[in-house]
């Protein structure tokens, strides 16, 4: 074990995480949530065509590998003349992917809010959109925090796939260093794994704190 190398590699790998993994995760997740809400509303729509579009979207996203989705966007689309840089390609693929998974979570959360809440919104004079926004979604948000946190933590790890389309994030940094030190690959990859683990553990702690905060208006 070359501890000297490990120490020297720590900061480059970590900074790959801070400047690559984390922003990629945050941006993709934020866009993914917007897609998810939109798709969930499609699926809940009384219009069968809209509902079908939502269902089809979720089915395709969940029924195909993320790596394939990533390759289609980055290596596939250029065949249609659509050439996208590595970073935006990764964001597009990850956002669409999160959108598909989170849509189901959001849909279930909206359905978990009792009908009486909708009716109470209507009887104070609100329409469907306002009742959704002010009454139903805040309650649905609380319900969906645990499963969405899991999606978020999975995304942190999944962004390592972006290394395959030339995005310089944490794992690609580790790969680059490993390329010059073939006898220390194990050490360097364990080091990268450790840094992912620290990220995810910190996020899990944040998740608990958030759940506690959101639980303040619920009886125990």
């Amino acid at each position: 074990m070359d501890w000297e190398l490990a120490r020297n590699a720590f900061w480059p790998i970590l900074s790959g995480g801070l400047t690559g993994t984390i922003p990629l995760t945050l941006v993709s997740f934020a866009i993914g949530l917007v897609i998810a809400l939109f798709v969930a509303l499609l699926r809940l729509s009384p219009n069968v065509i809209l509902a079908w579009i939502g269902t089809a979207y979720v089915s395709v996203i969940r029924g195909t590998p993320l790596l394939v989705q990533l390759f289609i966007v980055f290596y596939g689309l250029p065949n249609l003349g659509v050439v996208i840089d590595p970073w935006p390609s990764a964001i597009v693929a990850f956002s669409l992917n999160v959108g598909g998974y989170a849509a189901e979570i959001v849909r279930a959360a909206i359905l978990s809010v009792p009908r009486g809440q909708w009716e109470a919104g209507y009887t104070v004079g609100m329409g469907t959109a306002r009742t959704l926004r002010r009454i139903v979604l805040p309650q649905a948000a609380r319900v969906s925090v645990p499963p969405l946190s899991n999606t978020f933590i999975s995304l942190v790890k999944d962004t390592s796939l972006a290394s395959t389309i030339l995005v310089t994030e944490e794992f690609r940094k580790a790969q680059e260093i490993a390329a010059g030190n073939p006898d220390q690959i194990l050490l360097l990859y364990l080091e990268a794994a450790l840094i992912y683990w620290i990220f995810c553990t910190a996020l899990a702690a944040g998740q608990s704190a958030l759940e506690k905060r959101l639980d303040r208006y619920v009886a125990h």
Partner: protein
Amino acid sequence: MSPTDATGAGPEGPGDVLEPEDRARRGTPLLTVRGLHKTFGDNHVLRGIDLEVRRGSVTALIGPSGSGKTTVLRSLNGLAMPDAGTITAAPSRRQVRRGVPDAESPAGEPLTLDFSRKITKQQRFALRDRSAMVFQQHNLFPHRTVLQNVIEGPVQVQRVPRAEATWRATELLERVGLAEKRDAYPHELSGGQQQRVGIVRALALRPELLLFDEPTSALDPELVGEVLAVMKELADEGWTMVVVTHELQFARAVADEVLFLDGGVVVERGNPERMFREPRRERTRQFLHRLLHPME
């Protein structure tokens, strides 16, 4: 319409509680319901309901479970959409006050919803705009404090300035003895307190009509009284109320008219005193008997 149109039915409540346009029209019809029918699948739930709600009156709906009471009540504010029949609503307070036509019905004309035709969103909103509802399960917004629950409608929908809405809400909460709970969340309250907040939330909308769907049925027995007391006070003040209830004592003390529903029809209607003493229909007699002597 002018204040001289008042017919002045019943005792005068404290003058400053009701809106002047409502007080002036006391005793005139607020809602007229004719031939309401409703089916859920092949379940014919309402089979021709007629009902007239006069301003300042209290109407009690009684009847066995499944008889259609809730569906009637929800038809009055457009939460349930009947398949046939009409609901006619007198010009709203807003119309009278502004003296200008609303989009849904030109000035002075009543609003008519004919359920055998397509009901527009505007019509449904116009009907709902006149009333506020208190639910059996309070349906308070769990993620909002008591105060936020109460001002949600006034601030978000009616565009009342927040300071004014807060001030009015606090005053209403004081009236029902809950001023010190204004920053509590609903789950921190007892069932009776929750229901009183539900009533305040309804009152804060300044409705012309208050709808109650078994407001005490979900409460522990010792909490029923505090809610009924508030409702009785409102009735005494001259609020127009339609109440689905199993509390016969309350209905006798407060209601001007009782409707006994069974199987989606009004089997008997009339003055509560008279109906409870000498029901004219056998089915009414049996129902009242069962309610008063549940063990037999």
